[in-house]
């Protein structure tokens, strides 16, 4: 049996396959379809300071090999999460990571501070990259100095593993990654959705209520792969890669590009058990290539005749 265990800074995962925020609920929605305890980790849907009703319908447009969404961080707030959801999911035998979002610096700090007290949450993923909120969100994720500032503010109140999730909607992804590392991030995850748009030619109207939205799915995989490769060479901290992964081969490509772990997102909508197929496929790949540990894949891309 190949060893699937990976270590990302302070965070140990039994395998490198996590679920991406906003695509897996808080895990319990999938227990009818799969054993969630086999996952390396679950990234719980974004939690904000207060209840958010999100954007009006329509929030989704199907695109070739992908989809646009404009959900707008609908959730019931951090206190509801701690009171109602946490007790139901805390004993899953996998790493439960909570995605944290906000409109202001204070909101990120408030949510991170409250989550710091939860024993069974070993890490948070700070979402400085949501394209679907008017203030905050992506604004924090597109200016390096602001990204450093929000990361540092959260770092001050959050003592466990701090992951910062980057937006691809920037001129230089490596500048953003360095900014998050400078602020004290333990791990970088990327990419969030790419800003896009869909139009209904018959009605001459935008499909989404917000006009623009975030593109996800296999359509964005090449962009994500390129950014993971660039970032993993630019920073010393570990990288979690995501963007369009739906097979074990996709996951392996991200690890070769430099990711220490991966997140599976939109593919969960099409096959709710896809993550287990990816874990099994990863193990089969390692056996076929006679590789003892999945760690050997990380950043092992061969370039220029190596």
């Amino acid at each position: 049996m190949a060893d699937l265990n990976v270590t990302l800074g302070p965070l140990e995962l039994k395998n490198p396959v996590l679920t991406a925020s906003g695509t897996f609920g808080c895990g319990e929605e999938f227990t009818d379809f799969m054993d969630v305890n086999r996952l390396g980790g679950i990234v719980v849907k974004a939690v904000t300071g207060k209840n958010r009703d999100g954007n009006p319908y329509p929030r989704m447009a199907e695109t070739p090999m992908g989809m646009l969404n404009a959900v707008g961080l609908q959730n019931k707030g951090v206190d509801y999460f701690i009171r109602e959801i946490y007790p139901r999911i805390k004993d899953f035998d996998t790493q439960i990571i909570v995605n944290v979002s906000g409109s202001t610096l204070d909101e990120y700090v408030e949510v991170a501070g409250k989550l710091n007290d939860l024993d069974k949450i070993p890490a948070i993923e700070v979402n400085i990259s949501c394209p679907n909120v008017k203030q905050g969100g992506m604004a924090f994720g597109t200016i390096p100095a602001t990204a450093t500032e929000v990361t540092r503010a959260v770092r001050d109140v959050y003592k466990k593993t701090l992951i910062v999730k980057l937006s691809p909607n920037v001129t230089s992804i490596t500048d953003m990654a360095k900014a998050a590392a400078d602020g004290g991030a333990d791990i970088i995850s990327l990419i969030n959705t790419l800003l896009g748009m869909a139009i209904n030619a018959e009605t001459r109207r935008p499909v989404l209520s917000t006009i623009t939205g975030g593109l996800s799915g296999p359509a964005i995989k090449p962009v994500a792969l390129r950014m993971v490769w660039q970032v993993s060479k630019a920073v010393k901290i570990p990288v979690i890669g995501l963007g369009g992964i739906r097979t074990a081969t996709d996951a392996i490509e991200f690890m070769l590009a430099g990711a220490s772990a991966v997140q599976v997102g939109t593919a969960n909508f099409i096959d709710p058990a896809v993550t287990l197929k990816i874990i099994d496929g990863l193990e089969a790949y390692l056996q076929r290539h006679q590789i003892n540990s999945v760690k050997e894949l990380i950043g092992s891309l061969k370039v220029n005749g190596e």
Partner: protein
Amino acid sequence: MANTLVQKRQNILEVTGKRRLNDRHFIIQLTSEEPLPMMLPGNFVQVLVEGSPTTFLRRPLSIHEVNYAQNSFRILIQIKGDGTRQLSRLKNGDKLNVIYPLGNCFSLPQGKEVLLVGGGCGVAPLLFLAQFLRQNSIRPVILTGWRTQSDIFELEEYKKSGEVLMTTEDGSAGEKGLVTDHSLFRSGKLPFSRIYCCGPDPMMKAVAGLAASHGIDCEVSLENTMACGIGVCLCCVTPTVSGNERVCVEGPVFNTKHLTWGNPDKEACQNKCHG
């Protein structure tokens, strides 16, 4: 009424029957190797479409009829785009990956006098509902709306469970006009304790308005676009008096009193809430 006790499943089902109804509609019958889970009227399935380059997501489709003895059920499909066109090419013996049963269901009424209103493909869940009501000793009135006579299908099936009325937009069969133009609604007090409706949004809103004006309870089945169908993507939400709710989990069936339709105060609140 939520169907939360039934375990949802992802199964490979076999196509064991297919019937073309008209130029845009067809029915496929799917059979499971194992016994079917309990399914209720209003529940839907998520079907994986293979072989279509532009169809990325599953297609949510209402359960049209269930036959537990044969481990089979039927879904009624309208050809709308490439995904449903691909499904229309399925043949007996083909396999389909289906996630089911999903969503909540219509509730049983207080009284015995009920009206079902369906337009076009919106009749899909109403056959299952009519049969379910019949099993519960209720014989519904079923009002169906069509564009034209050549569109009409399956009326004989509905007649087995209730009294069937119809309208066509061009007057080629039944009464001329939309379902809401039917003389039933001009006959003073409507003798129903519950109206069930499924069809295009404008039709459901009009029927809900008529129900409200007669003081009749009304349940509608919504068809919002969905990604996951299992409650995690939050794409299919509809505004309700308690905020945005998921059509795939809290719905697709909603009591119209719970929705914000036709209530300007509630709608204004909704529009302010988005961030």
